[in-house]
């Protein structure tokens, strides 16, 4: 049932050219080179150290490896990370 609903939403957004992160409630990850990361529509932090960052989202856990990572801003909508980013993995 849920799958059908998602399919419908996807088709609608495709037809009307609506941004999918809004319609399908997906996280939006913007990586600036390897020096910064911007995740909107997240669902909380699971783990944070200077080397590993795990963030919960609707598609699963986003895991980021890096060094000297710092959380520039945390808001209920958005997380801005600054630091050297080496690897990113989405565990769903």
């Amino acid at each position, binding site marked *: 049932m849920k799958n059908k609903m998602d399919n419908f939403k996807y088709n609608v957004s495709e037809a009307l050219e609506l941004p999918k992160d809004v319609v399908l409630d997906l996280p939006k990850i913007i990586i600036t080179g390897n020096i910064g990361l911007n995740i909107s529509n997240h669902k909380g932090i699971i783990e944070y150290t200077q080397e590993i960052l795990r963030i919960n989202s609707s598609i699963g856990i986003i895991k980021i490896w890096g060094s000297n990572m710092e*959380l520039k801003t945390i808001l209920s909508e958005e997380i801005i990370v600054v630091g050297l980013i080496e690897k990113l993995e989405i565990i769903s």
Partner: protein
Amino acid sequence: MQVIKTWNYLRGYVIIRVEGLTLERFLNLAITSDIYLWDIKRVDYTVLEIKVTIEGFKALKEVVKRVGCRVELIDKKGVPFILYRLKHRKMLGFGIVIFLGLFIFLSSLIWSIEIIGNEEIKTGDIIKVLEKENIKSGIIKYNIDKDYMKHLLLDEFNNISFLSIETKGTKLIIEVKEQDLPPEKIDTDTPCNIVATKKGVIVKTIARCGNSVVHKGDVVKKGQTLITGVISDEYSEEYILVHAEGEVLAKTVYSYRLDEPIVKLIEEETGKVYERWELKIGKKGIQFFKGDIPFENYNETVREVKLFQNGIHLPFKILVHEYRELETKEIKQNIDFLKKSTHIKAVEKVNKQLSAKVQIESKDVKYYIEDGILSTYVVIEAIEDIGEKQIININ
């Protein structure tokens, strides 16, 4: 980003250190209770360093209770804390207020008056007129009534055609444009005589109105009446006063003598320069020098060293006195060449005395040599109108 940082600084924020085991839970709870956190740094496995606003810090107490971690305040930053500190240092605040007050007060005074563009009118005269109205250095610039000042100066000096007054910083700048005064015209109803402006030999008199009292060949002195406006009869004592008018052409002589030694002493610079520095504050100066001037004959020039290119007015000046050594040389000049050059110079001098309406009759140049000095005489005879109107005083 800088804007947000500045805004945070204005509102004030604290840096805190959070110690605990479930720090991620602490962050998530802070997010859900709408506390704005930034620059979060994991210093150690159990330690976080966080920046938070003052209101946020107060709201964090609830979160801390639920998570069970320790919060330590490291630093307070921003304007509210500075103000709080200033409350306990009243004299410092007082000093700042006095400084600002003095600054504003001193910069609202007129410190100097500058007058630009006056040629005929003396700067001192304008300043005197202004001083009478209590406009001088030391008054508050907002009290100056510029329109009144303009009227005052235009009334006082007839030959000002344009006047602009502006205050630039602590300077009052008066810009003046002068115009030439037209010669005073005598009304045609006023009785007048025509008198001679200089001595000369009369060539022709044309009296349009009034009686001519001089004849051709007469030698007249300066101020002598040429055409009189008093018309009288031999047989009666009655007389009529008229406005005399007419032209009196006379032959006048202009001469000039120029002496020039044939052996001439010329001073030449040897190229050796000696410098002295001077620091001038107001009218007093301090000279920095080592030893006396090492030359017997020298030329002194003073030049100012400007620290800033654009016209910033400093209360002191740095002057450099330059002394250039001079050497005197004797030069014997060619007489023929000298005659030519003195001739030209002398004629130039005579021409300066002549007015535009003069008609030149003859020119005579004579040379005399005496004691090694060449004297050049230039005599120019000219014909011109020497008449000038003069009002008759009836007593």
